[in-house]
């Protein structure tokens, strides 16, 4: 299973993004500043936006899904229960899992953004996809939900999972790190070697590396282990 970026390019006015690389099975983290082009890249990878130059190819990927950054963009149902059904899911099982059972008849757009995000992430993560693209999955979530999301992602097996985020505190264990800098996608490599090349690394990770305690990965457990290492 592979996703190829063949010097694909996206342009809006003076802004441009050029991406090159191959994404294999595992969890990939794509980081970058706000406005660097993470969402554009996610849309291109999902086939919802055509590159202006170059191409994006797939090998062995038969199903794909994208979770958009803003939960409102996913809404097609008039009630929360209908929204679950629009994903082909039984509302009771989904709403029970995300603690929204009492909001079953509420219009989805009247939920808070955090609730809506929780709802559609649950709908998306209940399916199995060869390629799963999560654009800013941690935004609008509280610490507990971020932690829960990391646990769910860690439990998933098979397929290519790509997280596009500028998150600095909550991460699952990832296999590969990429970052967008100056309109170019840079391959930082696999963990733990990628950490020293990762410009957007959270301050804590940078501090641990400079203290000679390079973490094995970026999950809170790995950071704690590196911090407590003697």
């Amino acid at each position, binding site marked *: 299973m592979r996703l190829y970026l063949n010097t694909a390019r996206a342009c809006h006015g003076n802004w441009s993004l050029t991406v090159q690389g191959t994404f294999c099975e595992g969890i990939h983290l794509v980081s970058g500043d706000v406005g660097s082009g993470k969402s554009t890249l996610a849309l291109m990878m999902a086939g919802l936006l055509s590159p202006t130059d170059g191409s994006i190819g797939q090998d062995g990927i038969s199903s794909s899904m994208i979770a958009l950054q803003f939960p409102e*963009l996913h809404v097609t149902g008039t009630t929360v229960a209908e929204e679950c059904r629009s994903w082909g899911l039984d509302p009771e099982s989904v709403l029970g899992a995300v603690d929204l059972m009492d909001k079953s008849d509420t219009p989805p*757009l009247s939920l808070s953004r955090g609730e809506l995000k929780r709802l559609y992430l649950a709908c998306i993560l209940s399916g199995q996809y060869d390629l799963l693209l999560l654009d800013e999955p941690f935004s609008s979530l509280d610490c507990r939900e971020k932690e829960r999301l990391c646990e769910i992602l860690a439990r998933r097996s098979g397929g290519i999972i790509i997280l596009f985020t500028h998150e600095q505190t909550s991460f699952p264990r990832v296999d590969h790190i990429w970052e967008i800098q100056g309109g170019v996608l840079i391959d930082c490599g696999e963990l733990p070697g990628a950490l020293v090349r990762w410009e957007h690394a959270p301050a804590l990770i940078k501090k641990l590396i400079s203290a000679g305690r390079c973490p094995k990965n970026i999950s809170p457990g790995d950071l704690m282990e590196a911090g407590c290492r003697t």
Partner: protein
Amino acid sequence: MQDVRIRIAAAALLTLAAVVSLQGAFWGFLWWLVFTPRFGALKRTGMVAGTVIVIALAALLITCSGGDGLSYLIRMIVILLIGVWLYSGQEAGEFLYLGVWLLGNRTGFELGMIAEMGMQMAESLATDLDRFRMAIAIKGQRWGVKTLVPAGLVLVSDALSRAQDTAELMAVRGFSCGGSLCPKFTYGARDLVPGMAAIVAGILAFVPVSEFFILYR
């Protein structure tokens, strides 16, 4: 046409002419052919095509019930073409200027602002529709009759909630009524000829020219 006053007056006159008679629709269509970028002004071809289909269906119903469906079809399409031209040339703030110029800083300002908000709403509804279609595609569903009702409900509820937000924001910022504005209009030779031509087209549509000539034969 640069001047919103002439543009709207021309569009209103030509629309009225097309409503009144087939002859008026003919002059309106001729005006549209000569003075507009024609189909170059079309921004959302799909939406216009959809409207044409609805008009054609209504014309078919009129014909089936014994009315003149063809006349209705022709007149409505001319009105649609003029409307599309008017909409495509509209720039932000023009309705506000027009409102204040016509009715002053209180009533005019408010009417202009409502018109501006309406235009904004139309733009955002079009964007929301694209967004809805993308959401449908992500869920692996097809865009069709079955999705039209939820699409309408979601789009309207989204638009209402946005309107509520705007109203609250304006109230928080201290808006109560009216405002002060110095309307600015750009006027040039490019406005004069189409404007005069629209008046001529209007006269030709309303005045029974043939009878006039018979009278003096």
